[in-house]
């Protein structure tokens, strides 16, 4: 039996050249198809040393318990040998031996008690490090679209999967003692583990997520370090590279970490919220991790309601200008926040927030408008609006009134009518006042606009005048400067 291996690149290449001969124009699509199927090897550089052939060792269950410990370590050492999975035909026998050994090791640590002795920790961590720590290969497809394209898969997965499996069983074993393990699973180890979250292979990231979660749970001394490193990864992602595959997974872990924060929140955590999580909303690939991100933000607000105002102001600052898809996500997050908001906090942000909502409601993209109008289906939000109708209605009125007449999409027009009706029921008097002053208000705005233009026109004239003056005085000034230099 042979281990499942990726399709050999050789055969793909042959297929292409045949297709090319028939029609040069098919190549592009064929290439793309080929690329999607391809998997990546980790850095080939590391496996350049002489390749040792593996010889099968006896089964652990076949030896006496005295010998078991030594055999266990031998097997761990054997599993440190790495193979080139990009070459699907080389070392088939040795690859199979390693696979079987890894399987046996997984079973051995999960079914036996008392096998994880102090002396084994070093070998275990060494074996794990040798297999999973590697420089990730460059992204095959720089404009990778996670919603369209298939991710590139790790070629050595048949082995790596088992190593992760083993790692998890090791961490979860009742015999596992963090006090011993911390000698090996240290900051450097965690650092390397975190870098692996950039792996393009979702299967690997999923394992990493669980592994990191267990480590965070068991190693109290590493917690602050892990948080800080995640912080750095996120900052690099937001402000430098805009690329990191494991953002969603890291956020998921953070969600449960935030959940466990003690009150009152430390300044460090608040800073993380405001300087990392909120700016993260600007990322290009927000769709990939927005759910996890919004969860983290709401977790913070549930812990400490006073954070509501800065968070909402932050979101308003980063409100998407051109990406409607993101705007819909922002509106979703705002609704999640409003769901848990305290009425006193609501009062603090209602004005800027509803100015934005009023813009969204009149968006010409109907999904944005629709998402914003759905707020009026939310009972709690509705009650908040009703309480503050005197403030909110004047902000919302103009846009609602305008689109009820102008919007191209009939669904939106219908929704707006309902919203207007609800608002009218809340305060009929104010509504009538606003209706009657609508035109005057528009005219005042127009006048103001004209005044602005006038002002700028005058400023421009002034600028020209000054430029002329300057030109004229340049000669005289030049003269003076010359005098000065002469004098000195």
């Amino acid at each position: 039996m042979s281990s499942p291996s990726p399709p050999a690149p050789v055969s793909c290449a042959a297929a292409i050249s045949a297709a090319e001969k028939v029609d040069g124009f098919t190549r592009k699509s064929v290439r793309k198809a080929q690329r999607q199927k391809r998997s990546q090897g980790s850095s080939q550089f590391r496996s350049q040393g002489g390749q040792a052939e593996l010889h099968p060792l006896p089964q652990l269950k076949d030896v006496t318990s005295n010998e078991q410990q030594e055999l266990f370590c031998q097997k761990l050492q054997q599993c440190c040998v790495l193979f080139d999975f990009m070459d699907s035909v080389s070392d088939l026998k040795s690859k199979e031996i390693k696979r079987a050994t890894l399987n046996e090791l997984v079973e051995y640590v999960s079914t036996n008690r008392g096998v994880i002795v102090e002396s084994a920790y070093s070998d275990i961590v060494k074996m794990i490090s040798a297999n999973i720590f590697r420089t990730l290969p460059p992204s095959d497809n720089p404009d990778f679209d996670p919603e369209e394209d298939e991710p590139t898969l790790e070629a050595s997965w048949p082995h790596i999967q088992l190593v992760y499996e083993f790692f998890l069983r090791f961490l979860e074993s009742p015999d596992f003692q963090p006090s011993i393990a911390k000698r090996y699973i240290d900051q450097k180890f965690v650092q390397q583990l975190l870098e692996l979250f950039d792996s393009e292979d979702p299967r690997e990231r999923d394992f990493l997520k669980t592994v990191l979660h267990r480590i965070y749970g068991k190693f109290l001394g590493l917690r602050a370090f892990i948080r800080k490193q995640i912080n750095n990864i996120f900052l690099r992602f937001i402000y430098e590279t805009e690329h990191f595959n494991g953002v969603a997974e890291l956020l998921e872990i953070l969600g449960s970490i935030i959940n466990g924060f003690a009150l009152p929140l430390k300044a460090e955590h608040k800073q993380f919220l405001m300087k990392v999580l909120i700016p993260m909303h600007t990322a290009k690939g927000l769709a990939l991790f927005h759910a996890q991100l919004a969860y983290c933000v709401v977790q913070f607000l549930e812990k400490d309601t006073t954070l509501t105002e800065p968070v909402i102001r932050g979101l308003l600052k980063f409100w998407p200008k051109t990406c409607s898809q993101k705007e819909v996500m922002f509106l979703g997050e705002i609704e999640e926040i409003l769901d848990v908001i305290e009425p006193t906090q609501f009062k603090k942000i209602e004005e800027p927030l509803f100015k934005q909502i009023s813009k969204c409601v009149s968006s010409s993209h109907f999904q944005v408008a629709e998402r914003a109008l759905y707020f009026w289906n939310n009972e709690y939000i509705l009650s908040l609006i009703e309480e503050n109708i005197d403030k909110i209605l004047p902000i919302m009125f103009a846009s609602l009134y305008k689109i009820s007449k102008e919007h191209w999409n009939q669904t939106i027009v219908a929704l707006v009518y309902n919203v207007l009706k609800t608002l009218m029921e809340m305060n009929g008097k104010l509504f009538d006042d606003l209706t009657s002053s609508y035109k005057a208000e528009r005219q005042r705005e127009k006048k103001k606009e004209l005044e602005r233009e006038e002002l700028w026109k005058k400023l421009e004239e002034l600028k020209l005048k000054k430029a002329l003056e300057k030109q004229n005085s340049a000669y005289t000034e030049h003269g003076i400067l010359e005098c000065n230099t002469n004098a000195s």
Partner: protein
Amino acid sequence: MAGAAGPGAGPGAAGGDGDDSLYPIAVLIDELRNEDVQLRLNSIKKLSTIALALGVERTRTELLPFLTDTIYDEDEVLLALAEQLGNFTGLVGGPDFAHCLLPPLESLATVEETVVRDKAVESLRQISQEHTPVALEAHFVPLVKRLASGDWFTSRTSACGLFSVCYPRASNAVKAEIRQHFRSLCSDDTPMVRRAAASKLGEFAKVLELDSVKTEIVPLFTNLASDEQDSVRLLAVEACVSIAQLLSQDDLEALVMPTLRQAAEDKSWRVRYMVADKFSEVKCIGISGIENLKGICPADFLLDTTINLSILGLELVSDTNQHVKSALASVIMGLSTILGKENTIEHLLPLFLAQLKDECPEVRLNIISNLDCVNEVIGIRQLSQSLLPAIVELAEDAKWRVRLAIIEYMPLLAGQLGVEFFDEKLNSLCMAWLVDHVYAIREAATNNLMKLVQKFGTEWAQNTIVPRVLVMANDPNYLHRMTTLFCINALSEACGKEITTKQMLPIVLKMAGDQVANVRFNVAKSLQKIGPILDTNALQGEVKPVLQKLGQDEDMDVKYFAQEAISVVAQRLRKLDFPVKDSEEPSIPGVDKNLFLRPRVPGENTGKAQRGRAAPVASKEAVDAAPLRGTNAAKGPHVNTRDTLAQLETAELMHFPQSRE
């Protein structure tokens, strides 16, 4: 000092006072606070106008404090602000007051958004030059120190970019402090700051005294080059280029090379890649002579590293990332000039050959585009076996940009491969491009033919190119027929009077009867273009009647271009007549020639206009590659060009008298 500031501030202050009532600061600030981001942005972009209205005094005392206080805004607004402030020195009263600009820029330099911060740093660097040495130490250096010891990483990151501008003008005591600050940023806690420091290491090294470079920069370099994060290590490698230039050969070998060798074997491909990439930059410093280069890198190291590189190269050649591969392809050819013939054949040739067979067109293209480097060293023949299939495949690539790129290298390749090889293998490709379905390719192919003729001579053109071009005049596809005309336009000059009159002109004239209007008006344009090359008899006897007939065409565009051509041709005929009438003057032998040349000036001008004009037609065609459109549809593309044409025409007219002067 007061004397110098006086006249500068005088008129400004007076203006400010005079406009006081007109522009109270509140109104202007209201503009900067407008609720609409777009309006706010517009106002910020006109900040200089506002400052001008306020005058220098009030800009300093009122506007700048306001700006410093209201830094919390959208990043786009902040970016515009950071940019404006860099050019504000004059508006606050000149260099003596430049330091007033520091507070708002300092706040901007601590903002999270990278582009804002970078712009603020850029403006600060600009302003630093306007400070007097005293002001620099009194205001600027303290700011740099504050940023360098800021709490949040952003301010420390920004500080990294400011050391090198204030260091050279600071006193010795301050210099020591600056170096100390830089050192501590190089070992900062956060990788973001270390990256910023590493990326400025080279720049900072350049302004330091040589001793400090050796005792301080080199250890920093060594540390950064072995940082735990590969993103830091690779930036350190980048800095190595600048440091290497500063050191003597011995120092270089002792201080920098061990680290660099280590980096060439780094476990991260990114770092190794940077070594490869920067290596070629070291090479660029001394491209003129290898000796010069050896001064920078000891020869054995060169060899050593290059062998390393070729291992690395092999690694990268088989790398899965096409960008890594194509970047490598673009630098690797340059190595051959350093290595000499033997080493190139031994170490590099296999790589070139492998890359010529790469599946990614960019990689192959990069190799081919750098062929001249290799040609100098080992001659192109070594490669021609592999070269040809690569060229052929690129020539037929599905992406037209790839095809376009290879066309551009054709003249170069032709020169290096020689006429025989070319005729045998490549000529048919060049002809095939003429009937490509993308206009840009046809156009490039046309220009390519001209360059080839310039290279191989008219005889070659007459035998190989011209007949095949002319055959296309009978093609059923009107686009191909037009290509014939375009080729004639391009080739006539290179081919000369004889070929143009005898072979090309009859075909052009025949095409005047084409049923597609686009072809007919292009005939008119071609006749105008080749007119200067033809002799007067042909012009008078053959061209003029045809143009006159086209001038009566039912299609308005044909008519227009025909009339334009007629006027140019007529002008030329008149000018030729001119010396005959004025023959009382003693004619100098050169006169005739001069006068013959003169009409070519407007001819060349129209040529320019024509190229500009071709563009809109071209793009339309590229999109719509329909082989033949009805006459009505055919009118589509060129009707619009009339306006551009008219504009160009006036532009030419306005330009022309000047150029004659």
